[in-house]
């Protein structure tokens, strides 16, 4: 019952799990970064769902302020916006770093990188 009425939240949590496991267990750096993005998107879905109230409109003033009950909660959308900005910058940094790693090691496999750097001196 709970899962059907709250299927957005349930989906978000399943997606979060998928992203989290991908981030932790995949060897390939690009797949890890994709996992990170799935994880963040799942949280954004969850946040957006918290603010949405069925049957109400976006809180944009067109014909003057109607009344409070006509609008959804705008705050979670603002949080999602901020979160997206943060996620984009983290992804960009991680991708730039992967590029540098590929230049130095010639591979994107974390296990191989760990093996290769063990021999090197700091």
């Amino acid at each position: 019952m709970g899962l059907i009425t709250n299927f957005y939240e349930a989906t978000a949590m399943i997606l979060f799990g998928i992203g989290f496991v991908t981030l932790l267990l995949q060897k390939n750096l690009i797949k890890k970064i994709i996992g990170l993005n799935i994880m963040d998107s799942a949280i954004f879905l969850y946040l957006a769902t918290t603010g949405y109230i069925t049957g109400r409109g976006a809180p944009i003033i067109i014909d003057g302020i109607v009344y409070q009950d006509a609008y959804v909660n705008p705050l979670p959308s603002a949080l999602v916006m901020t979160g997206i900005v943060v996620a984009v910058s983290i992804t960009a940094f991680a991708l730039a770093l992967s590029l540098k790693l590929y230049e130095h090691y010639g591979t994107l496999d974390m296990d191989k990188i760990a093996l290769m750097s063990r021999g090197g001196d700091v």
Partner: protein
Amino acid sequence: MGMTFHFPLFIIFLPMLASVVMPLLRNSNIARQITIWVQVVMIGLSLGLTASLWNAPVPYFTYLMGYFPSPFGNEIRAGMLEALLAVTFSTVLLFSVLGTGYDTNKDIIPGKRPLFYCMINLLNTSLMSLVFTNDIFTAYVFIEVNTLAACAIVATKENKDTLKATLKYLLLSVMGSGLFLLSTAFLYAITGHLLMEPAREVISYLVQDGHYHFPLTMTMLLFIVSMAVKSALFPFHTWLPDAHGSATTAASALLSGLVLKGYIVMLMKMLYRVYGLETVAALGVFHVLFFFGITGMIAGSVMACFQTKLKRLIAYSSVAQIGYIFVGMGLDTQGGFTAASYHIIAHAFTKSMLFIAAGALIAASGSYNIADMTGAARKNKMAGIAFTAGALSMVGIPLFAGFVSKFYLAGAAVQGQTSIWITMPVLAVSTFLNGLYYFPVLIRIYSKGDGASASVAPACKPAPSFSANFTLVCLMAANIALGIFFTPLLSALEKGFVWLG
């Protein structure tokens, strides 16, 4: 109050402004000068804030950003604890930049140096925001800024090892931030607030009514895990030795001394101001903190014993010291929190000094390995003395800062009845282990060595600069001052915690 009312705002925005200016500069020397002078101003501002709160009848105030009232606006809260942490953080940051000019110039190519100082200023902004903010989502944003800046200053010394260390650090940190954002979303869904005080009112009401016990516990555990990953509590520490051990000296000193502490301060604020200590105790979360802290104290020290490289040894010692702080928080007493916050300050001053001295010793001996450092302290006398002082403080010899925090940790453990039988033996064992890995290094760097190794001494031995020596003297003075005149500081911290709740 008057002028000092606006100081927290300036403390946050001044380094932000400086970080915006940095990428425009071509000359790395000017960037360094600006960073240093910004720090000096910051120390002045935070000292002014501390002085104005010292004798105030109500030693805290809330500052509304843009004067928007509570449900819409963003709030800053400044109290005794926050002001003292701001003083500590800005002082340690100043000395970490000032004392490591040689290594920074050696490790980072000239074109990138202004960007390095840009990242240091960003780090400063985010640390100050974490200390002062009263809003959970603002904290999330600055946690991310802090993570990016910290990763960037590790990566600026570009070689195989730092890049790998940065990526490991970034991936684990990002996992931690994901958990933090998730728990923030849950908390917002449960309480409908992101500001700390209104959220706590709702939570205490919910706990009294017996609703939402399970979601609240889970949310709190998510917060703790996310902050534990970022502050390298024992089972989540794997990124720390790589990142702190391979970065340039300034970055190592900053990361070990300050960045880890920013997250712990945030966790303290979450426990105190969002959940309230009674709720945390009722949900049994203190035992989790205590258990992981105790494990970290022993495990960090044991792993440090097996290190052959000096910087990695100091990095593992940080893992153990983070354990001390979590034990202090897990004792579930006011005294425990005071001891933990005193250890934050003591460790910030000591660990940054150890890393700066280690950088100088590495430069003097020309090797990262402890085995090659025979007589390094004879080549750079000041670094040797500072390393000795830092090691003694970490072991917990009286008259040094580390002793006071250990002493008060033990005192706080006596107040909590059940934890004393675990805390005391573990403190003793951990002190013994600290001695076990610091004293061989001391003996090594002061021993004369045989003639063969002395003859192959590196030719590129740099003369220690005035600013490096000045930094080490100042940090040693701070360390000894913290070890002798601790009473007013401890009572001020205690006052800070009383009013924090």
